[in-house]
């Protein structure tokens, strides 16, 4: 197995773990943590491809990853702000209890 493939597998594993957490944990913040893990896994994928792909001198993968980090940071800020707001409103961060939009 090439290094690239192993890195891809690691990234996939990390992604799945993050996804599993986002889908199963009750606390909203932990869902956000899961999402951060997923984003990081994607970054790992990007860097791995940059490293082992053709033309690394173009810096495409690296740039992509850097921008992804920046965006992730912004997203984390806003997301956590929202969670805090929800907590103020509903006095809880338990997602199972938040079903006001039930159809």
């Amino acid at each position, binding site marked *: 197995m090439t290094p690239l493939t192993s890195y891809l597998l690691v990234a996939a594993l990390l992604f799945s773990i993050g996804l599993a957490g986002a*889908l*199963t944990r009750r606390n909203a913040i932990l*869902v956000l943590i899961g999402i951060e893990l997923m984003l990081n896994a994607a970054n790992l994928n990007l860097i791995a491809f940059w490293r082992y792909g053709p033309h690394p001198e173009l810096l495409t993968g690296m740039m992509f990853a850097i921008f992804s980090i920046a965006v992730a940071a912004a997203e984390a800020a806003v997301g956590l702000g929202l969670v805090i707001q929800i907590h103020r409103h509903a006095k809880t961060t338990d997602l199972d209890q*938040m079903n006001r*939009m*039930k*159809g």
Partner: protein
Amino acid sequence: MQETISFTPQLAASPIAEILWLIPAVPMVAAGIAALLMQAKRKTSATLAIGSISVSLLLSLMAFAHVLAGWLHGQAVRETVSFTWIQVGSANIDLGWVLDPLSAVMLAMVSFVGLLIFIYSVGYIKHDESFTRFFCFMSLFAGAMLGVVISNSILLLFMCWELVGLTSYLLIGFWYQRPAAAAAAKKAFLTTRIGDVFFLLGMVWLFAQTGTLVFYQSGGGALEPAALAVLLSQHAGLGLTAAGAIGLLIFAGAAGKSGQFPLHVWLPDAMEGPTPVSALIHAATMVAAGVYLIARVYPLMAAGALAGGTTTALTVVTWVGAFTAVFAALIAVAQNDIKRILAYSTVSQLGYMMAGLGMGGVAVGMFHLITHAFFKALLFLGAGSVIHGCQGEQDVRRMGGLKSDMPLTFLTYAIGMLALCGFPLIFSGFWSKDGILEAAQHWSVAKTPFYMLVFGALLTAFYMTRQVVYVFGGHWRGGKPAHESPAVMLVPLGILAFFAMVLGFIGTPAWPWFSAFIDGRVAGFAWRGFMESGLLMLMGASTLVVFLGLGLGWKLYGDRSPKPSEPDALERMIPPVWAALRDKLYVDELYGVTVIAFYGWWARVADWLDRQVWGGVVAGVAWGFGLGAQLNRFLDTNVVDGVFDKGCDELSVGGGLLARMQTGRVQTYLRILALAVVVLAAILFWSSRA
């Protein structure tokens, strides 16, 4: 010997011939406008009617002058204007009009007499509330009659003929609220219709054989030698050629319109209409249309005659005419209604005209037609004046002594009566009737019509004397006293009286202008004309007959003035004959038993058929529809609605099921999202692998 000038071949029509169509068109347009007027606009309608017929009179006189001018220059005029109306395959149906001496004299007579009667009507109908309607119908009639006169196409003639019949119906039934008037109008229409069916048959046959319906058209017309030769070569059974058979069919139509036996029954009943109507339509013009028609198609009737001989068609015409003349005169003797006497007199005189046409040709018949128009119109208008003066009384037994109460009416009436009887020399009837008698005397087939016509003249003098003595002689037997009529009614009487006397002079043997004009010959004045064989004898004989009749009438009725309850003088002498004559020789009753009974039976059968059979079919169809509608409703309510409702319910259930997906929880949505991405990625990867 007299020179014959032939009719000129079709040249370019003169201006007057081009606008000849205006003569019938103007009164018809006036009728159309009058139809839209309100009943209150009396003056407008009368002005329209009189104005339009004056225009027609003016144009007719111009046309007459043109033809006369041509005749004076030794050129007999016959100008036609034709146009194609319909094209059926390769055959053309043309319409058009003709200006020749025959149509010129007829135009002048119809429009002149019409104008006088219109003026008279203004006074007669003054107190009637349907004044405008009267003048509208009269204008329409005038237009239609003038159309019959000028028409060059037998189809156009037929159309105007039917229109004339229609207006006759409308005017007989003018006072339609009276059941007698309505019935009389219907009778007139139906009886003439029977004649018209034969006319139509003849017309169609003519078209089929000759391919044209136009009378004169540069050699190609139906009355021109080429077409006549075709018709003569066809044989139609019963020893007739096609020409003869068609002529007889057309004569059947003319017999209906002109009241020849046996289709005469409508004319006496037509007296239910107002007197001006009787004067114009049933004395002077419409009934003369039949005679005019025969005169117009005379070449057809006379086709195939050997020199000096006659054809079957003309023989039939003569016999029917002569018979009618005597038949009607006999009935007239026993009538008590002033107008009915005149009606039967008209029928009798029409018989004379037909006999004259059959035996003597176009000029003889037409001359009597023209003179008769004037004096019969005069007599009818005079009778109207009498009725008006007696406040609506029409029974002669309740009149009397009017010669002092209504002197002017008496004077003009007497002139008319003497003209009708044929009083010698100064009255037109004498010359015209003698023309017919002369032709009868020289008829090659038989002498019987001559004797019949002479007997008829005797009867004419007799019954007219009876009538005049009853009305004007003796003393007044009626209710309120009578008064003279207003000037608007008397002036036309005077004018007509003048013509009743003077017109005779255009047809004397010494100066046979009329026949020369009609036949296209030259005529000069010569006393020598009286010296023709037997003419003076004939004139003497007819004078004798007239005086005999007058004398008999005077002797029987004299100054006696019997009361209405007493029997008539003649009745006392021969009661059964009188009864038969008074009951119109039972012709109406005969019709009632045969034709009308059969018709009634047919009508009942048709009614039964209509109600049971056709009505049943319709009801059945309707029931079927009802059934279909019920089935439809059943389907709609149960099947369609059921399906639809069920479907909607299922939709609701499905919606409910789907709504369970919306848990309102973020993680559920995330899961679904992830699942979808998995599936998508799997598919993508799988497809890219291949």
